[in-house]
């Protein structure tokens, strides 16, 4: 459905934000995982017609996203990573305003759309409040509501669950999964469980490159049997990092649990464990980091 070919973007200062990206995204939810500064937002903005790439093409069905942005915007729902609002105007007013811009010209219908979305995002009670006084989470829900106006066929949500409490996050997941089957939904995030819960397809982006893609199950299957874990003291961490292919570590009651990706049992107290999506993610970006000397580019992209 959405087909991205050879997409490359270089900023005027020479930083390569996207490097030859090729992706085919079918209908349904698609998870785009990547660390901060991987180029996720650049890619999202490019698909959302807000940024022109240096090279490459993006087709949505038969529509060329890059040369016919006006056409694509008609079927687009976009929730940016970070957004503000006009200083004046209530949630209702602004949603209504956006509905007109989305082409819902029938005022009766628009009222239903706007009220329905306000209910679904749990903003109905505060619909007359000034949007500018909303908390971060409320504002994020408003962002979700506006992205859903007008039955978009391509929904791009960039870090949608940032700032949401667990309850709201669930509500959002439900909302997305309801619509996620007939349309293309691209969910960009660095929270692995979001993808795990929702997305039949996914890709991992790091350093501006797609370093891995497929269904979460396939990707997990690929590394099944290669993940080993061990709990060590904090002062042993550096030695382990040097000695093994440590993909992740986290604190656990004063000690450190490390996971490594290795062909066979590394011994030294490591024990086998089932691979999860997080291992997929960390393995991929670890490999990418080792391959690329582009670490500097990564951070610059975040700007």
């Amino acid at each position, binding site marked *: 459905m959405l087909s991205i070919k050879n997409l490359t973007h270089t900023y005027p200062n020479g930083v390569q934000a996207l490097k030859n990206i090729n992706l085919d995204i079918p209908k349904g939810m698609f998870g785009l995982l990547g660390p901060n500064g991987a180029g996720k937002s650049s890619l999202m903005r490019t698909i959302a017609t*807000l940024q022109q790439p240096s090279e490459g093409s993006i087709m949505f069905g038969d529509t060329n996203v890059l040369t016919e942005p006006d056409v694509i915007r008609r079927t687009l729902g*976009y929730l940016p990573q*970070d*957004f503000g609002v006009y200083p004046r105007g209530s949630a209702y007013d602004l949603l209504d305003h956006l509905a007109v811009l989305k082409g*819902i010209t029938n005022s009766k219908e628009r009222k239903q759309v706007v009220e329905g979305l306000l209910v679904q995002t749990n903003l109905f*009670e505060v619909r007359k409040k000034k949007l500018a006084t909303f908390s971060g989470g409320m504002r994020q829900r408003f962002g979700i509501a506006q992205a859903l106006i007008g*039955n978009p066929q391509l929904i791009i949500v960039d870090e949608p669950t940032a700032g949401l409490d667990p309850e709201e996050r669930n509500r959002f997941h439900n909302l997305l999964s309801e619509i996620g089957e007939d349309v293309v939904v691209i969910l960009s995030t660095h929270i692995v469980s979001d993808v795990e819960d929702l997305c039949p397809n996914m890709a991992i982006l790091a350093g501006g490159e797609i370093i891995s893609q497929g269904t979460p199950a396939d990707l997990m299957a690929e590394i099944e049997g290669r993940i080993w874990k061990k709990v060590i003291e904090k002062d042993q961490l550096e030695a382990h990092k040097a000695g093994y292919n440590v993909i992740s570590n986290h604190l656990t009651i004063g000690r450190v649990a490390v996971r490594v990706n290795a062909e066979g049992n590394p011994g030294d107290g490591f024990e086998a464990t089932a691979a999860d999506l997080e291992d997929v993610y960390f393995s991929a970006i670890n490999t990418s980091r080792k391959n690329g000397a582009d670490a500097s580019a990564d951070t610059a992209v975040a700007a």
Partner: protein
Amino acid sequence: MMMLRIARNELRYMLKSPQTIVSFAIFFLLTFFAMSSDNVRIGAGGNVLVNSPFALTQTLLIINVFAIFSIPAFMANALLKDVDHKFDGILFSTPISKTDYLFGRFFGSFIALVLALSGAPLGSLLGTFWPGVDPETLAPTNLGHYFAIYFTLVVPSILAIASIIYAVAVMSRSIMYSYLAVMGLLILYLVGFRLLNGPEYREVTALLDPFMMRTLGEYTRYWTAIERNTTLLGYDGIILMNRLIWFGIAAGFVALSYGLFSFRTAAKMPKEKKNKTAIADSAHKETIPTGIRGTAIWSFGTAYQQFLLRTRFEVMSVLKSLPFLIVVGFSVFITFTALFNRNVGYGLDAYPVTRLMIQAIEGGLGLALIVVIIFYSADIIWRERTTKFSEIIDAMPAPNWVFVVSKLIALAFVLVTILVLGIVMAIAVQLAGGYDSFEISLYLQRGLMHLSMPFVMMAVLACFVQVLVKNRFIGMMIMVVYLISTIILNQFGFEHPLYLFAEGLDTPLSDMNGSGRFIEGDGWVRAYWAAFSVLLLLFTYLLWSRGTLQPLKFRLRNLRELKQLSLALPAAVALIALVGTGWYIFYNTNVLNSYVTADDRELQSVAYEQKYRQYENLPMPRTISVNIDVDIYPYKRRVETRSTQVLENKTDQAIATVHILFPDNLDIPLLELEGAKQASHDKDYNYYIFDLDTPMVPGEKRTLKFETIIQQQGFQHAGNDVTLVRNGTFINNSDITPYIGFFPGGMLADRNTRRKHGLDPLPRTPKLEEANQYGNNYIRQDSDFITFETTVSTVAGQTVISPGYLEKEWIEGDRRYFTYKMDAPILNFYSYLSAEYEVVQDEFEGINIEVFHHAPHTYNVERMIGAVKDSLAYFNKAFSPYQHKQVRILEFPSYRTFAQAFPNTIPYSEGIGFIADITDESKIDLPYYVTAHEMAHQWWAHQVMSANTQGGTMLVETLAQYGALLVMEQKYGKDQIRKFLKYELDRYLSARGGDPEGELPLYRVENQQYIHYRKGAVIMYALKDYVGEDVVNRSLQRLIKLRAYKSAPYAISSDLVEILKEEAGPENTGLIEDFFEKITLFDVKMKDSTVEEMADGRFKVSLDVEVAKVYADKEGRETKADFDIPVDIGLFLKSPAADGYGADDVLMLEKRRITGAKSTIEIIVDKKPTFAGIDPYNKLVDRNSNDNLAAVEEAEKVLASNE
């Protein structure tokens, strides 16, 4: 130390912020251009050098006023940024003391402000090193002056204002209130000084002016060039007082705000209305279906609906913003000020005619609108990005044009709102003034359409620039640079409207002639820039950046959209319109007319001088009789002239060649000089040289025949003709007839311009002693008194008038003909006025009086007729009989504002007396004065003409002023004269320092208006008072007998001075010399006056007076002299300056000789005086005329207070 650290941090923060950089750049550029450009002269000019202390002070103090707009960005920002950035919670919980915090922030930001404003002195310093600056106008660079002025005058003013703004910010926690405080200060400043405008309020305004502009004006009012070039303002007198007052106010504010400030009151929660309908709400909520996402419809209707929505949104966003209210408030205020400022001189206002109202709106709002455009274009274009809402909005399926056009409309809406408000206020002012003929269509056409168009185009440009740049401050700076370029490009010789964006042609407005033809050429230029603006708008649309700001290179890809017909068509139409109108404008300005810039004209004058000045002293015959037929075609823009003139060789040599010079815009189909053939014709200057077959011997006469045609075509880029217009043509003979011989007026006159072209300075006027000029009059040197007859025609609906008596009048076809003939000799100086006139007729002792006026201008016609009658009655007796049988006053359009006396005709501009409002009878009757002055010229110019030497204009203009004073005094009394002369004295003293070549004594005046009009009036009145009216009038009668209608020689100023000395007797010789032959300044002062009742019931008054007299030279250097003239001493029951003062209030008034600089006079009178004065009527030229009067105190009280 904590405070220091806070201050340092604040300073570091401020120095990195855009407001510091932008303010510095703007103030640097403004003063740099003010200094480096020849055309901008703040405080300088004439003998006052551009970097003199006076000019620098003036420049930097004006910048002070502009700087007030920057102050909140520093002072309020210093305090409020914590709140804005939500940092206050962290900051206010730290253990900083209130004093450290408040004063630390204050000093940090204030130092940043001082650094930002230092762009002004730096710019003015570096500006003087610009290569284009004429070194003669520069004093040696004195860095001390820059430091002294900046740190002793500018910085303290800024400190006072900054403290007030800071205090307001501390108290209100709102940047908007800080701006409101700025507005308030400005409004107080401007309104206050608008209301306190008269000379009597000067001292008060000088004390209260926070920017010290008035203080400077008052302190240096009568400074001479020497003083302005060398003296720095001291910290004394009114300057010190002013500083004390403002520091006091500032300190008060600071103390108050310090007292009120507390860290705890910082955060305010926004108030929310309680939702009363919560229950009903939740019930409703249950019924809402949630699955509906809507069906989008994509048609033009949708886009149109989106467009309406966005436009409404943008307009409301502006309307509801506080800055908009501030801008509107400011505009309302400026407009009101401008609408009420209709001064036509001598404290008199004009009636609020619509023309003046429109000009006031235009003049008042012009700059404000540009500021609005620069500010709001940035605000509106960047709205989504600033609020970070852009990514959502930009991904919406609304077309680019919806955003671009709605934003532009919002901007245009702001502009139009302000203009409409201006018009509403104008009409209100007219209503309040009892003026009831509202010309709504004129308001709409000139006040709204014509006025708003360039601003709307500028708004398009501003939006385009803002879309192009990456940062709104850069965009604003580009617009400021554009604004400055509009001011300076002209100076560098770039004058063509084809490349001066949105600038039209001059379109002066007149009640008589409306917008005339001017509006048509202007219309083409506007159409051209409108087409350009449409293209700009298209590019704005195409380059409109959605989402991430893309480099221009990327955005240029969008230009491929131009392939679409919906864009290509308007683009093509606009391009064709641009090229078409551009071609037509070029055809008009450069083909039909020639494109000559001011620089070109200078070069032409230089070439003319180099080529022909060699003939300056060739003997030439003079015109002695003129017979001339003129056909005026006001609508076809044509004047045909056929003339036969007689030239006579009045020299004592034979003349072999005759030079004839026509204005260079004339066609000359016929030119024949009897017994001569044309040797050469220089088409560039229309300069003809004829060789005579046989030389003209002395006394020989020859006939000169010529025909000239003025045929105007199209329009010019500048200087479109204001003389030949549809209704109100006013041309004079120099427009249609030749000058015989080399015309000296064709040479450059200004010293500095001449120096630039390597030419030696020209004397303004030949010296009084140059006897070879005694046979030339100062008006034109190629003729003396002539006989005159003319037949003139115009279109049937108009009347055309020239000097002479109407002999015949007839209609032929669609044209009206008039034959006028003069019965007495006249100067070779005549005019033709053609317009649709109303005539008011009257008669005085057989002399016919007519006022030809524009129908609605009836206000002051009777006053003018009264002035004519009074003048005739008085001058006939006092001087000599009037030489004509008729007096006609002719109104002409206000493109020029003067009245001028031709023989028996007085053209009189609609801009002055005709619309002056003299409802308040205590005001000076301007139309009466001007008419009397012009009437007096029938004697002083048309009977006695002066030679072309120094002092020439004294015999013409000074004596006309004298005549006007005589009839005014008779009609309105001494009190009015005192008021009138106060204006005249003030104008004389104020202008002395600005004379480019220095002041001269009255009898050597070189056509210097401040001397021959202003000082002349004061001197003649004093002379009349000192030697007696009969003595002066007898002297003038003798001058008439001696020189009337004489051309060999003409009268010179010393003729009159000699006669006066003879008539006034030897005891007045010194006085007459002081008045006429020297620049004399008096200083008399009533120091103290006491009164004591005597035993016999009478009163003994004791007066302490001081007197001084100095002689000044050209530049104002003074030498002391003995005070050797008697002076008025007066005792009054009421102050002569008070309302209702009359002759009954005079206890005693007599001239006394005062010996010694300080003396005490004792006088015994019957009644007890309350006021005493020395020269109480201000007859003498006295730089401080306010200390001449003093209230008389009881003697006992004085003693008591001494103890």
